[in-house]
């Protein structure tokens, strides 16, 4: 059936609306499943190509040696240049690339300029996440049964490094750290974990 001339503009408008709505739906879907959307989730370029693999997986440096605030306060914090120099005063890299990168760190130390690391894991401003209390909970041996972020049972108390992997994934085996390496860090993830562990889920625990 041919649409009447009268209907035509309405149909065109309808078509436009459908296309736009479709676009909106697609965007919303992308936003939901990729966090954050449009390539923002890719690993940022760091000023120094720092490989966690060499430091953690090969040389067994503890997380809290560099992220030294993680067991004390809200933010894990990235290390100051001095911290790198503990070792890199003497240790040179095995490859030329590594040596260039280490040289960058030494130059930064000598010229007294901080290294502006790019933040990888980020929560919105209206969320107050405290690293310290989460680590304290998971490493507390007096709590018999704890559950991981996907509801899996954790019987033995993990150490600090194992606790980090619960949310951040196996960072120690990554050359480049990307967001979402471990968990998507959406509110649902937080609430699920709080629920299975029988932790308060009052809004004011995180939002204030």
């Amino acid at each position, binding site marked *: 059936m041919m649409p009447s001339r009268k209907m035509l503009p309405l149909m065109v*408008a309808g078509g436009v609306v459908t296309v736009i709505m479709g676009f*909106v739906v697609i965007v*919303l879907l992308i936003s939901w499943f990729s966090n954050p959307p449009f390539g*923002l989730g890719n690993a940022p370029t760091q000023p120094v190509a720092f490989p966690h693999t060499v430091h953690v997986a090969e040389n067994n440096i503890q997380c809290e040696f560099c992220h030294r605030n993680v067991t004390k306060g*809200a933010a894990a914090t990235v290390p*100051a240049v001095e911290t790198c120099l503990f070792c890199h005063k003497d240790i040179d890299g095995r490859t030329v690339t590594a040596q260039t990168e280490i040289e960058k760190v030494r130059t930064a130390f000598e010229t007294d300029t901080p290294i502006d690391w790019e933040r990888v894991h980020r929560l919105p401003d209206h969320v107050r996440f405290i690293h310290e209390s989460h680590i304290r909970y998971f490493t507390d041996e007096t709590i018999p049964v704890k559950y991981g972020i996907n509801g899996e049972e954790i019987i033995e108390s993990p150490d600090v490094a194992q606790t980090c992997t619960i949310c951040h994934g196996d960072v120690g085996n990554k050359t480049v750290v990307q967001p979402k390496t471990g968990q998507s860090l959406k509110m649902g993830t937080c609430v699920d974990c709080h629920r299975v562990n029988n932790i308060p889920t009052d809004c004011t625990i995180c939002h204030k």
Partner: protein
Amino acid sequence: MKLTRRNFLAWAGLGAVGAVACEGFGIRDGELDIQSPVQLPEDLVRGNDNWYASLCRTCPSCEGIVIRVMEGRAKMVQGNPYYPTNQGKIHARCEAGLQALYHPDRIPTAMRRSGPRGSGEFLPVNWQPNGMDTLKDVLRANGSSSVMITAPLRGHMALLADRFATAIGGERLGFEAIDNNTYRAAVKSVFQQDSLPDFELENSKFILSFGADFLSTWVSPTRFNRGYGEFRQGEGRDRGMFYQVDSRFSMTAANADKWLPVRPGWEGYLALSLAQVIIAEDLQDDSVDVASFVGGDAGIQVLETFRPEVVAPLAGLTSEMTGGNPVEFLKNLARSFAANGPSIAIGGGSAGAQSNGLFNLEAIYALNFLVGSVGKKGGIRFNPPSPWADVPNSSTAGSLEDWTRVTEQIRSGQTKLLLLHGADPVHGLPDSLQLRDAIAQADDLFVVSFSPFLDDTSVMADLILPDRVSLEDWGDDISEPGPGYQIVGMQQPVVNPLSDLDPLSFPDVLLTMAQELGKDSDLPWNNYKAMLREGSDALFNLNRGSIEASSADEFWNNLLKRGGWWDELRNGPTSIRPADGLLRTIAGKAANPEFNGIAAGGDSLYLVPFAHNTLLDGYNGHLPWLQATPDPLSTVTWQTWVELNDTTADRLGVKEGDILRIESSKDSIRAVAYPTPAAPPDTVSVPFGQGRKHGSDYATDRPGNESSNVMDILETTQVQGTGSLAWAGTRVRVSKTGESVSIAKLEGDARAVEIGILPSEEIIKTIAPENA
């Protein structure tokens, strides 16, 4: 397509969805705005707060505070729970010290004047060599004809400034727009004390206050508020009774059980009439030797002339005000005051700011002897001398007499160097003194300002060397009034100045100058901290007081940690005998208040200015929180208002928000009308503190701000005997300008709720039987 209502809505809805969706794509800039941790010191634990003890410098009473510091930024000011005077409590003003620290209008670095004087045109210069060398040159050349004007100082800063002024051969004067000189003089002549006393309100049963707005601005409001709370509803005591005799309905009057509106300047007569009743009816405390106190029969005869029958009409008391015969009322008041000890008589504020202010205050404070509350629990407590022999425990300020002289010296070229720190005399002195013109026209004068902010005086400077603000600097204080025992408060820098600011500590600059000029024989310290440290060592060597330490270093650390040192066993004098014939001497000074300028009668009104609840005399004017804090009574913010009675307003045809011209014989100012039911019909009241001409946008009088300085119209009447400004001694005429604005006030914002009032007959019976 034809735009019908229906498809308009459809498109509009689609647009909204689009807008929401697009909003969802982006991440708000603010959320990414996180300070890079690599800029911070390595050993700093982020996200944890630290609290450092220090002192508040936004009130003259100087409370002990603790400051919350996170990641090198000060976040919050709270009361230091250990500090004896405020015990963890603060005034609204204390909080705003943070805004001075992070104020957008702070002067970033040293500056030289580049335009004509007073134009406000400055060019930044380097501290070294330009700033400091210029200062050295002018000090060397004109130090001996210099005047240093500072805030009223106590503690080591006073010692340092005085010694420096002496070393260069100049003079130092403390400046306070609303000075306490008359109050000090009264305390000196009645109680023979040099430092201000404390009022132990928490244990008092009856407070009789004349003109002192002690809950809001007068002397040490936080300490008095603390006592007042207990006075009302303290555990294990009856509710106290409180009368306020005041020519303005102040915040303190609003909290009194009874406000007695008195004609301005007659407070002293009222006090003497109460004394007369107490003596005539033999109601005085047992400790009082009446014959000696009054000065024999001659004294009694003099006192007779102050009978309530004589004074009540003079003070303008009507039966409406007193709910019956005013004479009977005064007699009953005297009886209650004498019978319900411990009772306190307090005088200050407008009662002392009249030509006869000294007489007023002396008469008021003498009442305390009659009821035996001098040096007693629940009465007046005196403070011991400073724990350091040479460090002043009490601040001094110049009087109007001094400022007239200084202005004259500037005009005549006798003063060649003016050093300014923490004082804005151009704003804080009556305009008729013409200090501004004197400075502007003095060609030989060099003005150095150490103010971290531009104000009406520092804008006249040739050289500005910005000081650090209190949260960045060292300091100390000997509380005045102290808590009745020896006390020292310590101020420490809790944060460093921000990187875009380059202030230098004023005391450090003075010490450096003394060294470079070779005049450091009395000032041997390299910096102010070293000077304070020596003071700390001296306290340690006293081997007493609140801080236990085994070494001088430990003592210093503990001193800073606790925010001060005090020794509860070193009390002030408790038994003070009145001078022979004290009451007769005082009565002999009785004088009527003088009002220069506009004559009484006709359409003239009394002008009773008052210190602003948060801005005080104006030196907090640049702090936006304090500008935005509603006045307790009028709830007006950000502007200058004039309180006048509803009936007066009706008579003049004035509505709220009308801009009025207030005119004295000197000048006129504009202010927004605020009619109230509480102002006496023959007075108008205007707050001090507003109306800067220069400086921070928050403080200045720009078009549309309706902010003006009541100092501009005050008569230069002096208080007899002290030479202070009698700021409540002006008569004015009020007229409409025809303009009107929307008044910036809190009142009327919200729906009304119910205020619970419990009429208390029992209390009337126990405390003031005659008024039941």
